[in-house]
């Protein structure tokens, strides 16, 4: 009788654990890097930046149902930069599960869902490093801030989603707005107190004047329109466009406008083995108009286009081409005409680990020499991570 009682209690206890404990997972992303020049041209916070061993991203994810109305999740990240461990809140937000009329609210601290690159976490990147144009316009940590967004699944016979949101636009995760600028190389700091030193100069060489949020006018606003079609049972296409606007730190009421367009195509035969073979082609173009003097804008623009070919089970080959340029304003390492070509090959021993070899060819307009970067990247995952979006 006692054994029966014990088993019942144990069984009840195990179920209780699953009821209360969130899904927990951890991913570790590391790399070895080597560059042909003295400097690296990788300015992303989670890029392999140091010659030798790098900790790119260690991410702890917790997610669970909050109640019948909401899901909650949080992503806490750490990385090591120059021997210093940095902790950051990557994302923490709630989502509604079933509002009427096809609506959904997402709120908290989150990556702005603009384009298809910004919101992807480093361990899920198709390449070891952040695209140049995203680094320039969204910053080395990506565009992520507290705010709220409303999404609407339009009742159409094809997938059509419109999203509108607003987020706080201060800090180093809002470089195109009121935040710390990406004005000079190495300007991306993880709160080491150096902001005052660099406070003078911002994007394009224009001085930083304004940083206060006094009301709704100083927030960032975002609108996204996305469609998806199945061209066949094995080919899916996704098209999206974004508009972001907000005040920047060059003067009172000075505006930044960002336009983004993205195109995604995936081919995967209906009969596939472990999800292979497949081809993914993703292209995104951005244009930023940044007001630096009354009605005078400096422009930054660029694109990234990448193809991934999963040619046999567990192996993926990738090729990426990028370009970034600018009009008006000061030119420096973070703001010059650049083109980059990258290829990589990734092996997935299972769905929960990967090894990737990547080679970047970096070409800068004023340099005759091409900079080479080679990375060997490794990722592991433990725990129950939610399914990735398409």
């Amino acid at each position: 009788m006692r054994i029966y009682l014990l088993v019942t209690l144990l069984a009840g206890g195990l179920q209780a654990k699953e009821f209360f404990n969130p899904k927990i997972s951890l991913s570790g992303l590391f790399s070895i890097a080597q560059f042909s020049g003295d400097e690296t041209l990788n300015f992303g916070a989670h890029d392999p930046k140091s010659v030798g061993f790098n900790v790119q991203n260690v991410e702890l994810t917790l997610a669970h149902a909050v109640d019948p109305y909401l899901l909650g999740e949080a992503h806490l990240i750490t990385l090591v930069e120059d021997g210093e461990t940095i902790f950051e809140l990557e994302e923490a937000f709630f989502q509604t599960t079933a509002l009427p009329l096809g609506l959904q609210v997402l709120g908290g601290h989150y990556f702005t869902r603009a384009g298809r690159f910004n919101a992807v976490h480093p361990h899920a990147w198709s390449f070891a490093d952040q695209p140049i144009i995203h680094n320039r316009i969204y910053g080395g940590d990506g565009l992520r801030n507290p705010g709220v967004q409303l999404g609407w699944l339009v009742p159409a016979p094809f997938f059509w989603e419109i999203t509108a949101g607003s987020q706080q636009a201060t800090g180093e995760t809002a470089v195109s707005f009121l935040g710390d600028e990406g004005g000079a190389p190495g300007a991306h700091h993880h709160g080491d107190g150096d902001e005052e030193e660099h406070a003078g100069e911002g994007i394009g060489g224009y001085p930083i004047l304004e940083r206060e949020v006094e009301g709704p006018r100083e927030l960032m606003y975002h609108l996204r329109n996305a469609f998806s079609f199945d061209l066949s049972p094995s080919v899916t296409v996704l098209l999206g466009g974004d508009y972001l606007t907000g005040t920047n730190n060059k003067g009172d009421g000075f505006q930044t406008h960002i336009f983004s367009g993205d195109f995604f195509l995936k081919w995967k035969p209906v009969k596939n083995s472990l999800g292979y073979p497949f081809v993914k082609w993703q292209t995104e173009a951005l244009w930023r108009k940044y007001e630096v003097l009354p009605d005078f804008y400096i422009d930054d623009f660029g694109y990234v286009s990448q193809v991934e070919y999963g040619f046999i089970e567990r192996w993926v080959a990738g090729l990426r081409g990028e370009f970034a340029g600018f009009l008006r304003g000061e030119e420096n390492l973070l703001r010059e005409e650049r083109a980059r070509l990258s290829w990589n090959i990734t092996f997935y021993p299972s769905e929960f680990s990967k090894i990737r070899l990547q080679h970047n060819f970096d070409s800068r307009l004023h340099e005759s020499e091409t900079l080479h970067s080679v990375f060997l990247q490794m990722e592991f995952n433990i725990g129950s991570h939610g399914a990735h979006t398409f």
Partner: protein
Amino acid sequence: MLHFSIRMALLFVCCASFSLGKPLNVTATTAELGAIVREIGGSDVKVEVLAPSQSDPHFIDAKPSLILHLRKAHLLVTGGAGLEDAWLPPLVLKSRNKNIQKSARGYLEAADGIGLLEIPEAGTDRSHGDVHPYGNPHFMTTPENAKIFGRSLVDKLVDLSPGGQKTFEGNYKAYAEKLDQIQKDFEGSLQGASLLGFHKSYEYMAVFTGADIEGYLEPKPGIPPSPAHLSSLLPVIKNKGVRCILLQPYQREKSAKFLKDKTGVPYHYLSIFPEDGSRSFTSFLESNYKRLLQYANGEKK
């Protein structure tokens, strides 16, 4: 007074709209689940299937177009036991359909009420491969499990569409009778026969027919066959007298062909359910068992 009557009449009409001839929108994740819903639901249900039957149900892409199948559903039928965990949850979330969220009335998991095989013991982790964490989810292959699920489905359909009760119960009776016949004809019909599988897709069929699955072409779940592992199967095929290898259409035949070339053991694809509803679940299950017997007894090449 008149206003009140009109309002009550409208309310009644809205609530009874399902039983007034409007079919229930049911979305099923796999083709066999869809086939069962069609057989029991009859003309009172309109069924859509998310995963193409030629695709591996573990690796379906959460394409935005699938959201359209979920948006208008009154009932979502899933296999459960973790089978769809890699792709279904983001689709259900994006559908914003409150009827089909996990805690809602319009959500039915077939695994509930089924006695699952291979529930992982304490201490099982991913070093064993991509093990199904709740047990083997490929259970809709035996008449007994199909009956258990059929019964849960009837109860759920009656709950959502009370006016169709007579239809659902009547269809279920015919469905259960056909399953009983399959049980009589095929239970224990392959006692002691040795087979090889690719993935653990046929365990329930093996227990039902008495066959023994001696090994798998996958070294561990989710890991593709390696030359070393395939070589290790050669003595198994010989010593156990393996009669044939069973494959799903999306599994590479190269590895099975290697074993056939070395040992002569044939490999066969067990048929998969068409997702368009052109065959009933029971007739297809019966023909699948017939083919299994023919393959195992060497009657079909």
